[in-house]
């Protein structure tokens, strides 16, 4: 029998006040008018709890952009789900935070872009850094599990020790240092974001040392960059095995990037129950198990560990979603990765200095700034 998933990822909106250049949201985002309503989400959370899912991850976009976030958390909590809010913190001050915790929020994950204000704001494409610092102190005073997330890449990795030291002063329970994953906007900006081999090797040492130093005080989890790895990541714990994602418009996906794979049919929670989707939706069945695998995955000993890597990455880089993830050193298309890394390590695109994007005249605060170095994430219509 097919076991039910462990967690539900709810992308409650694609709207976001930040324009992070490493954002992994799809380039084609769900429009604000297509978003599920409060009642739809509550029905989905109840179904998830009935299926014995444990965790609910509220993400986006920026979940705080939804005026009904407190109601959503309260409903999920009442249903019995462990609720986690993944946020930039923009739109959150003490009273709203206290109300969300009162409603049953268990865990909050606050993102940082850098240790330095000018650089942090430049990466986020908006003035966010100072508010995040202020908010971190407010969160720490509340009874809620607190994680600080930091996405690292070529433009901030040289300050990794400084960034960890800053986060340490904010006293989270947990720190998550994630190398950029190349989907959506991050893939568009790959040339500016891919770390050099030297940066990567240094980051491994810095993270190991920090983990030892912080042991018992701050749990440090890290995500390594798969381009430099020997074997691929077990993306989402395997396709349709542990996680189920609902996008803002109600579309059920096995992973947040799965929308890029052509010819997959995604079902919608407006029309089907979560249980039906998990068991019957063609998109979830497409790469479940092993029958879809090509050589060398098909006979590889690692196929039960990494499930052939990421289907979306396989499609984005090779054009074939059933191919072995090209980051795998055994993949027939691994030369794509080797060529990319060679280029990124020899051409040495410079580490830029933060540009003052805030001197630009912008008619609409919601529109991303324009920039030479990279493409800022846009907002949905």
């Amino acid at each position: 029998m097919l076991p039910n998933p462990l967690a539900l990822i709810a992308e409650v909106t694609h709207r976001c006040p930040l324009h992070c250049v490493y954002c992994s949201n799809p380039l084609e985002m769900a429009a604000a008018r297509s978003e599920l309503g409060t009642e739809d989400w509550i029905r989905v959370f109840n179904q998830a709890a009935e299926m014995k899912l444990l965790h609910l991850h509220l993400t986006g976009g920026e979940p705080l952009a939804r005026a009904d976030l407190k109601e959503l958390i309260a409903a999920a909590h009442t249903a019995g789900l462990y609720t986690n809010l993944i946020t930039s913190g923009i739109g959150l001050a003490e009273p709203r935070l206290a109300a969300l915790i009162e409603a049953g929020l268990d865990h909050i994950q606050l993102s940082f872009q850098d240790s330095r204000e000018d650089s942090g704001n430049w990466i986020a494409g908006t003035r966010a850094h100072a508010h995040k610092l202020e908010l971190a102190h407010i969160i720490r005073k509340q009874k809620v599990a607190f994680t600080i997330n930091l996405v690292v890449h070529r433009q901030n990795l040289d300050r990794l020790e400084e960034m960890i030291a800053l986060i340490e002063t904010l006293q989270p329970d947990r720190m998550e240092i994630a190398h950029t994953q190349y989907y959506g906007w991050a893939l568009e900006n790959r040339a500016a974001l891919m770390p050099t081999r030297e940066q990567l090797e240094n980051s491994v040492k810095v993270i190991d040392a920090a983990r030892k130093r912080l042991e018992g005080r701050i749990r440090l989890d890290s995500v390594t960059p798969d381009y430099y790895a020997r074997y691929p990541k077990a993306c989402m714990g395997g396709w349709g095995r542990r996680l189920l994602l609902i996008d803002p418009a109600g579309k059920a996906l096995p992973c947040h990037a799965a929308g890029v794979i052509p010819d997959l049919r995604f079902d919608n929670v407006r029309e089907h129950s979560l249980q039906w989707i998990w068991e019957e939706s063609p998109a979830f069945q497409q790469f479940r198990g092993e029958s879809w695998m090509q050589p060398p995955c098909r006979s590889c000993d690692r196929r039960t560990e990494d499930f052939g890597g990421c289907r979306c990455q396989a499609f984005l880089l090779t054009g074939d979603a059933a191919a072995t993830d090209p980051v795998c050193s055994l993949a027939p298309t691994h030369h794509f990765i080797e060529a990319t890394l060679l280029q990124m390590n020899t051409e040495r695109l410079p580490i830029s200095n933060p540009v003052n994007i805030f001197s630009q005249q912008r008619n609409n605060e919601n529109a991303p700034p324009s920039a030479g170095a990279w493409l800022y994430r846009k907002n949905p219509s």
Partner: protein
Amino acid sequence: MSLPTDSTQPRLASGCRWSNSNGEDKTLLFPEGALRLQGTGKKIVELCDGQRTFSEIVNALQADYNASDPAQIRQDVAAFLEQLRQKRILDY
């Protein structure tokens, strides 16, 4: 390593709680994870209420398992609590 002492009062860390489901097994929920506990493990964590001291927890377990070597129970419980503290599931 910082093993608990007699007066240590272990408690669930912030953001760590039991799931609502009832049964033989109980599930501890925490950020990005869950732990299914049964038997002695479940019993030990249930005793970590922030009030009971480490020595009271050990005594309670000894009363239940009076055939076992008390020093061994003490050592095993200390190691178990420290393991959960390292995972930031318990605080003390």
